[in-house]
């Protein structure tokens, strides 16, 4: 059997090395998007964002409402999330959130648990429960 000359052996090794390098470069180009690919994906991402925003209720929610809906969604079982978020949105009418706060109630004088003028001729008493 004829032995390989040193130059021939060196040449084979260099060839093998080049082949390995070429393979490595090929795999990089497969995972990293080109500038063109990135640019073409951006409008699609923006479109998805717009689609998500358009699915939100048309009336803007205030921060507490958003937080409540978020919390309901986080704590609810997945199957009930949609229904609960819908229910929560229905249970938070805007007039409550935007209502005047302390000392006023729907533009009627309030004091403690009373509404209306103290000397009004009629007294309506409501024994109620919050649950």
């Amino acid at each position, binding site marked *: 059997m004829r032995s390989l000359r040193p130059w021939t052996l060196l040449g084979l090794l260099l060839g093998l090395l080049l082949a390995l390098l070429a393979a490595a470069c090929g795999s990089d180009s497969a995972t990293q998007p080109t500038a063109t690919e990135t640019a073409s994906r951006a409008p699609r991402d923006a479109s998805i964002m717009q689609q998500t925003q358009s699915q939100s209720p048309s009336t803007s929610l205030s*921060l*507490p409402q958003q*937080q*409540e809906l978020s*919390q*309901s969604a986080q704590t609810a079982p997945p199957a009930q999330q949609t229904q609960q978020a819908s229910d*929560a949105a229905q*249970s*938070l*009418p805007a007039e*409550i*959130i935007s*209502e005047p*706060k*302390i*000392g006023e*109630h*729907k*533009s*009627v004088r*309030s004091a*403690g*648990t*009373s*509404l*209306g*003028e*103290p000397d*009004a*001729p*009629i*007294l*309506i*008493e*409501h*024994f*109620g*429960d*919050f*649950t």
Partner: protein
Amino acid sequence: MLIEQYVASGRARYEYRYMPVLGDAAVFAAVAVACAGEQGAFWPLHDRFMLADQTLFTEAGLRRQVEFEGLDYEAFNQCLVDSATLPLVQASYEEGIARGVQGTPTIFVNHERVDPTYEAIAEAIEQALQ
């Protein structure tokens, strides 16, 4: 509608009485609303609880609402922890029992019990105004 029709016009005064007949959650809600009342914010919390907003039965949900109403949450929470308003709620409850209240809602117009419907209440008011 009754509020707009009779209370806002100055012909009637409306008073809410605590009557927590439906268990611990009802007592908690009444105490919490009364604690808000201690800071002058009975009605905002009353309205929120009346909407059956279940997030108010969580610490985070209640805190968000209390802070949204501009209340001092630490003072509110201390009031809750101490059940500081429980005697107020208890007194209201006992008054209800003494007056024969067995369920909610129960409505009195000038101390006369009426059915808790708009028609019955309006009729009682109109009669009392004559």
